[in-house]
């Protein structure tokens, strides 16, 4: 499998008559996008723009999607939602790099997920650095939460797909090539390099905590093997938006940094064999079964090492430790990527599960750290949710519009794919 990614660098976003890219500016036609995303389940969909440095707060953020367009090869981006379930991950895909669609709207009353485009909060979220088309969705009274969630999720994909069309005629700024050999070819080409896979844990617990693979609800899968290039075409998408700091948005899945950094060492220090995706279900039996299958696949692949990433808080710690210890007991060396809930003072036990075999851990930081986010000129989404985040999540909304919250309310702040530089140390 071979995938060429052509990046078109987007440095600004504006509304225009036609959706197009010109000199790094992404022009978005409101009419075109609104026509494409229309959904009878929702009462209104409005579009806003948020650029890096703007005095803008977006909340509650549901998902973030990077616009990508498949121009050559089988299938299309976001299979199972925007295109059919053809296999993806080969051919040519164009990326509006630096642009993002951000969906917002309260599905349940307490939802967090803050993106500040400027100020101290901007340092904690990657989406303060992207030029964002913000899609604000309103649902009628009485729409079930399940339908509401599905509607908002798909609106985001559709908006990303329609603006990605602007890439078709744009000039590509840079090309990247990703090759994925089959197991046999890889072993022949790199006989002396350690075989490494990536164990990709997906949040799968129910409404607002789900992840989809080619349109399949991942709580219903057994762990399986995928090519790292499939993620780059949107084979994995997010329906997970609770715990804003350590959920993976669709943007994260498209730009998985562990996949990128394993590719950077592929053929030099290691032979990157592929990705084992697994889930994080609610029952202990499911956790046992999925970690057993993960270990079995790792064993069948003859792995020497693996990186295991987590998504979320609490019970996924159990999945993480099961995956890690089962691989280590097979002699497969692991590094786990997680984040911490060490309390506001940083003095408590960080994880809900631990094992001495997990001796190589990378952390995305303590999600309980408290931060004050100053008021912004504009709030996109539901300004009402500010009160609710503040109350329900034990923060406080001041009269001047500033919010004091733990960084767990900020989208992507302690990402467990190692997307950020934020981390924690013992002092």
């Amino acid at each position, binding site marked *: 499998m071979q995938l060429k990614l052509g990046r078109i660098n987007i440095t600004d976003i504006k509304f225009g008559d036609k959706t197009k890219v010109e000199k790094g500016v992404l022009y978005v036609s409101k009419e075109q996008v609104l026509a494409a995303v229309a959904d009878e389940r929702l009462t209104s969909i409005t579009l806003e723009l948020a650029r890096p440095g703007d005095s803008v707060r977006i909340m509650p953020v549901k998902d973030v999607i990077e616009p990508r367009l498949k121009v050559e090869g089988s299938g299309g981006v976001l299979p199972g939602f925007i295109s059919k379930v053809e296999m993806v991950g080969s051919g040519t895909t164009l990326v509006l790099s630096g642009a993002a669609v951000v969906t917002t709207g309260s599905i*349940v009353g307490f939802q967090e997920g803050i993106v500040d485009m400027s100020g101290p909060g901007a340092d904690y979220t990657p989406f303060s650095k992207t030029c964002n088309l913000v899609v604000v969705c309103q649902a009628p009274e009485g729409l079930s939460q399940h339908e509401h969630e599905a509607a908002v999720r798909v609106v985001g994909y559709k908006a990303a797909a329609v603006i990605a069309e602007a890439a078709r005629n744009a000039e590509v700024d840079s090309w990247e090539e990703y090759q994925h050999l089959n197991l046999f070819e890889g072993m022949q080409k790199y006989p002396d390099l350690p075989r490494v896979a990536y164990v990709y844990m997906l949040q799968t*617990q129910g409404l607002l905590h789900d992840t989809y693979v080619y349109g399949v609800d991942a709580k219903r899968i057994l762990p399986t093997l995928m090519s790292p290039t499939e993620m780059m075409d949107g084979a994995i998408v997010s329906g997970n938006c609770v715990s804003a700091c350590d959920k993976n948005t669709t943007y994260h899945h498209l730009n998985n940094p562990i996949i990128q950094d394993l590719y950077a060492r592929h053929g030099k220090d290691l032979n990157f064999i592929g990705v084992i995706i697994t889930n994080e279900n609610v029952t*202990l039996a499911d956790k046992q079964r999925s970690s057993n299958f993960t270990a079995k696949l790792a064993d069948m692949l003859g792995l020497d090492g693996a990186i295991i990433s987590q998504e979320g808080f*609490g019970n996924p710690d*159990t999945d993480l430790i099961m995956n890690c210890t089962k691989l280590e007991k097979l002699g497969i060396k692991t590094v786990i990527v997680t984040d911490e809930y060490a309390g506001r003072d940083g003095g408590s036990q960080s994880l809900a*599960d631990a094992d001495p075999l997990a001796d190589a851990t990378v952390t995305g930081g303590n999600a309980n750290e408290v931060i004050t986010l100053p008021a912004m000129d504009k709030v996109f989404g539901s300004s009402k949710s500010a009160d609710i985040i503040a*109350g329900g999540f034990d923060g406080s909304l001041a009269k001047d519009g500033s919010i004091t919250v733990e960084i767990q309310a900020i989208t992507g702040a302690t990402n467990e794919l190692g997307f950020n530089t934020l981390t924690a140390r013992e002092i």
Partner: protein
Amino acid sequence: MFQVLTNNPKAYNWWLKRENKQVQVVWQEGGFDSVLTAARDLVHLGYRVINHPLSSSIKPNQTPYKTLILAQGTGLDYQSLSVIEAAIAASKKLGVFPGSTQSILEDLQFMDLEMCREIQLQ
């Protein structure tokens, strides 16, 4: 035999309506921690935890509701014990739910039910 321990009225009614003879639905008065404590006492007597007590990304200090399903067993299940103890520790560390409006409470009841509704008991 299964025990559904809950302090969530939505989950309580939903499980009662299932009328499964294998399932005993037990109302547990009190907050998140009281469900954990009651479940811990059952684990000490040989019950197994079916659903992880920290399922859902809504932290113990962000909701007062918890529904835990346990299965009667014969000996101590160490995995159940360790997850329940870790959940108790996490709940102590994060503090107490500060309270909220009725509509938020209803959403939190709904989410708690969502996290246990699809569990197959067999």
